[in-house]
C-alpha cells in the first residue's frame, strides 16, 4: 500500500507519540486510548443523546465527545476549556452506551475526562475548600451529616450540595439555590439512625440481604427507603443495614475525584463482605450503578476474588425482587394508574428495564400505562439539573409532555435524582401526578 507522506502537514507532530499514548492527558487516570479507537463513528448513538437533541452540535454528542478525547490523546488538541465543558455538559446518562453496537462507552470516557479536568483547571481556592468539605468530609461519612447539629433546613442544603457536589468548579447560575430549594420534598429526619441494624423477615424466610442505604436516600428520601426495607422484609428477607456504610462514590466519580471514590469503594467492599448476606441491595439507581463498577475502579487495588464476589451480590432492588419472584398473596389492592420513567442509571447503566415494570404490574389493581420515550433522560442526571438550568428545563418539558399524555395518576421512578427533578417539574407545571419511587407503590400494597 502506498505510504503517503504529507510534509509539513499539521498532523505530523501527532505521530511522534506511542499507540497507548497519553498525548495531552495527564498520566493519572487518563482515559484508555483503545476505548476511543473503538468508536467507528457510525452515529448510531446520535438520536439517543439528550445534549445533542438540545444543541444539534456534534461536539455535544457521544461521537463528538469521543473524538475530542481522542484528539487530546493524539495531541491534536490541548485539554481545552471546551473539552472540559463537554465533559461536564455530558449528562452521564449512558443512553449512548446502550445504543452503541461497538461497545463504546462515551459517558464513561467523559467521566474520566472530568477527573482530568481538575488537574488542568484547579478549582478556585474558595470553591476548592467547599468542595473538599462536601466531598471529603461530609460525604465520606453521611453519619457525620446526620449527627451534626445542623438545623433541618441546612441538612437539606447539604443534601443538595451533595447533589451539586461541584460547587466552585463550575459557575452555577445565581438562581440555583432557589431552584434547588424548590425541588426539595418536605424534610424528615434522616433514615439511617432510625433503621434497626437488622429488620427480620416476615412470613417464610427466603434469605438475608445487606441493604445499601444511599446518602440522598437517607437525607432527602428517608420515607422511600423506609418502604424499601419494609417491602423486603415482607417479602421474606432479613434486612441488614450496616450503619457504618459510606457514600457509594458515585458523586466523586462523576465529579472526577477518583481517588476518594476508590477509598470509599474499598471501605464499603470490606464492610459488606464481612456481613454474611446473600445479596447487597440498593434502591438508588445511581448507587447501584456505582457499586457495580467497584470491580473496575478497584482493579489492581483489591483482591480479584473479593471484587468478583462483591459484584456477584450487588442488585438493584427491582432486579433483586424480579429474580426472587414477588410474593403477591397478601398484597393489598392499589387502584391506581401508573406510568414509569426509567432512570438512566437503571436502564442504561445497569440494563434494568423490564423488572420495575413487572413489579408494578404485579401489584393488584395497578394499571401500568407506558409513556413514550420512557428511557429518555429527565434532565436531572446527577448535578446537571442544577448546573445547566435552561437546557435541563427543556429536557424536562419533553419528559413531562410524555407523562401528561398517559393520563396516569402516579409517576413512578427509581432514582432520587430523577425523583427530585420530576417532582419539581410536575409541581411547577401544575400537573396532578404523584411522583413515587417504585418501592413506595409496592409499599402501599404491603399490609401493616
Amino acid at each position: 500500500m502506498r505510504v503517503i507522506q504529507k510534509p509539513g502537514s499539521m498532523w505530523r507532530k501527532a505521530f511522534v507519540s506511542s499507540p497507548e499514548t497519553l498525548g495531552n492527558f495527564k498520566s493519572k487516570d487518563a482515559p484508555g486510548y483503545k476505548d476511543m479507537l473503538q468508536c467507528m463513528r457510525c452515529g448510531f448513538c446520535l438520536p439517543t443523546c439528550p445534549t445533542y437533541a438540545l444543541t444539534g452540535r456534534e461536539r455535544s454528542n457521544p461521537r463528538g465527545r469521543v473524538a475530542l478525547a481522542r484528539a487530546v490523546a493524539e495531541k491534536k488538541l490541548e485539554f481545552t476549556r471546551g473539552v472540559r465543558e463537554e465533559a461536564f455538559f455530558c449528562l452521564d446518562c449512558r443512553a449512548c452506551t446502550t445504543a452503541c453496537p461497538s461497545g463504546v462507552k462515551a459517558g464513561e470516557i467523559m467521566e474520566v475526562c472530568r477527573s482530568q479536568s481538575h488537574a488542568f483547571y484547579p478549582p478556585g481556592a474558595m470553591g476548592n475548600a467547599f468542595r473538599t468539605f462536601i466531598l471529603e468530609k461530609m460525604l465520606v461519612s453521611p453519619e457525620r451529616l446526620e449527627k451534626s447539629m445542623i438545623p433541618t433546613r441546612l441538612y437539606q442544603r447539604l443534601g443538595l450540595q451533595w447533589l451539586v457536589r461541584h460547587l466552585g468548579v463550575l459557575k452555577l447560575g445565581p438562581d440555583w439555590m432557589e431552584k434547588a430549594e424548590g425541588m426539595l420534598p418536605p424534610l424528615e429526619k434522616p433514615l439511617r439512625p432510625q433503621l434497626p441494624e437488622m429488620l427480620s423477615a416476615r412470613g417464610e424466610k427466603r434469605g438475608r440481604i445487606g441493604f445499601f442505604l444511599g446518602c440522598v436516600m437517607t437525607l432527602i428520601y428517608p420515607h422511600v427507603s423506609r418502604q424499601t426495607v419494609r417491602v423486603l422484609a415482607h417479602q421474606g428477607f432479613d434486612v441488614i443495614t450496616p450503619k457504618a456504610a459510606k457514600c457509594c462514590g458515585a458523586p466523586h466519580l462523576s465529579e472526577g475525584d477518583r481517588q476518594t471514590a476508590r477509598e470509599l469503594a474499598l471501605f464499603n467492599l470490606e464492610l459488606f463482605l464481612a456481613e454474611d448476606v446473600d445479596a447487597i441491595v440498593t434502591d438508588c439507581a445511581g448507587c447501584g450503578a456505582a457499586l457495580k463498577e467497584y470491580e473496575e475502579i478497584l482493579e489492581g487495588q483489591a483482591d480479584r476474588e473479593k471484587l468478583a464476589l462483591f459484584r456477584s451480590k450487588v442488585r438493584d432492588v427491582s432486579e433483586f425482587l424480579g429474580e426472587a419472584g414477588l410474593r403477591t398473596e397478601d398484597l393489598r389492592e392499589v387502584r391506581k394508574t401508573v406510568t414509569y420513567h426509567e432512570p438512566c442509571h437503571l436502564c442504561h447503566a445497569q440494563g434494568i428495564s423490564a423488572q420495575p415494570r413487572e413489579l408494578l404490574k404485579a401489584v393488584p389493581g395497578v394499571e401500568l400505562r407506558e409513556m413514550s420515550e420512557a428511557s429518555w433522560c429527565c434532565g436531572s442526571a446527577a448535578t446537571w439539573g442544577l448546573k445547566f438550568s435552561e437546557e435541563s428545563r427543556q429536557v424536562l418539558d419533553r419528559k413531562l409532555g410524555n407523562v401528561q399524555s398517559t393520563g396516569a395518576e402516579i409517576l413512578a421512578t427509581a432514582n432520587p435524582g430523577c425523583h427530585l427533578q420530576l417532582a419539581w417539574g410536575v409541581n411547577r407545571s401544575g400537573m396532578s401526578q404523584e411522583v413515587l419511587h417504585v418501592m413506595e407503590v409496592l409499599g402501599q400494597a404491603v399490609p401493616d
Partner: protein
Amino acid sequence: MAIMRKGLKRNKPPMISKAIIGLLQEKLGARNVLHEKEDLLTLGYDATPGVHHLPQVVVYPKTTEEVISAMEIACREGLPIVPRGSGTGLSGGSVPVRGGMVLGLTRMNRILEIDEENLTATAEAGVITLDLFNAVAARGLFYPPDPGSQKVSTLGGNVAENAGGLRGLKYGVTRDYVMALKGVLPDLSVISTGGKSVKDVAGYGFKDLLVGSEGTLGIVTEITVKLVPPPRDKRTFLAYFDDVRTAGEAVSRIIAAKIIPSTMEIMDRATINCVEDYVKIGLPRQMAALLLIEVDGHPAPVAEEAEGVRTILEQVNAAEIHLARDASQAADLAAARRTALSALARVSPTTLLEDATVPRSRLAETFSEIERLTEKYRLKVGTFGHAGDGNLHPTVLCDERDHDEMARAHAFYNDLYEKVLSWGGTVSGEHGIGLAKKEYLARQIGEGGVRVMKRIKNAFDPEGVLNPGKIFDEGDPETRQHVEEGFRVKP
C-alpha cells in the same frame, strides 16, 4: 481557478478572518456558525476509517436562502464547500479534504408536506430518514428506502449517495423514489427539477444526475419522494447454513424461481457473533451464515411465495429454517441486522468495509473468492450485506497501526475487485466513490468514462468549489484515504 487558490493552500489552510465569521453569523445567526477548534475537529470525519480533515468553518443554514448566502461568502473567500448530512457516509464524502466550509444540512429538518392524493412527501434535506418513514407511516403510507443507518442518516445524504437498504431487492433504492429536487448550484442559481407528475421527459434528467452525485454538483435543499401503499402482509424467515456458499446458492435459486422477496440479507459467522454480542437475541453462534428473508405484499401471494422460499431453503439443505413469530420479532431481526457494521467494529480498532456488488448468480462464487483471499492474506474478515442485491460488505477487521496488515488488506480488496469487475460487478453498490474508491473508478468505467464524468462536473462547477477531491483521482496525496498515517497515532 484563480479564486480557488486562496483556499487550496494544501497543508496550511488559510485562517478565516474574524470579519468573515462575523458576516456569516450575521446572515445565519451566531449559533449556526461554528469555528472553534473543538467544533472543527468533530466535523471533519464521517464513518469512513482513516479520513479526517479540518474545515475552517461550519455553517448550518435553515433555509435555501441561507444556503445561498453562505455559499456566496465561501465562493468570494475561495473556500471549498462541503455539504454534510449526519456524517454516516462510508466513502468519506463529507470530509473536507481541502478544508473550507462544511455546510451542514441537519438544521433544515422540516417535513413540508405529505400529499395523500399524489402519494408524495416533500421534506427538507436534513430530515432523518426514519423520521420521514414514521411520519408517512402514521398516514398509512410507506417510504421504502431503509439504509442500515436510517435512524441517523439524512434524506439529503441518501439522495447524494443514492443509498440502498434492506428492502432494496424488491423496492429499489433512493433514486427510485426521488420525484423532484430543489437545490443550489455552485453558480448560486436555484435549481428545481422534477415534480409530482409521474412522467417527465422535459430535457435532460437533472434530477437523476443529482441523485448519487455525492455533493459534487449541487447542494440539495428540498426533496420530494414517491410513497407507496404499505404491504398488507409479510412473512419473515431466518435460515441458518453450515456453509456460506449454500446461503449464496439459496439466494440465487430463490431469484431464479421468480420470487422477489423484499429483503434477503446475509451475515456470516463473524458477523453473527458480533451482532449477538450486542443484541443478545439468541442468534446461532456456531452457524456459518444466516439469511434474513422477508416476503411481503397481498396475503395470498405472500403465502404462496413464503411456501416457495421454504421449499428452496429445504432443497439446498439449510441447517435450520425459522419463521418469525410476529411483526415485532421480525422488526427485532431487521434491527439486529442493521447493527452489523458497528457491531463488527467491536473486534478491532479498524474496520475496513467494502461494497462490492456482483450479479446475483455469482454470489456463491464471490463467497468462495472472499474465503480464498481471506486465507491467502491471513486476515480476519466478516461479511454481511444485501445478498438479494448481490451487494456484499466484506469487512476486514484490522488495526491501522499495523502496516503489514494494512498492506495485506489492500491487496485483498485489489484482488477481489479484479474478480468482481471481471464478472460485470461494481466497486460500489451503494456507498459511493468519495475518497475511498477513487483508485477503482477508472478501472470500472474506463478512462473515457471518467473524462465524460469530469466534463459533467465542469459544466456544473467550473471553479471546482463544491466538494473538491472526491470521486476523481487526481493523484493528489491530500485527498487520498491514507489509513496508515491518516488520523490516528502511529506506533
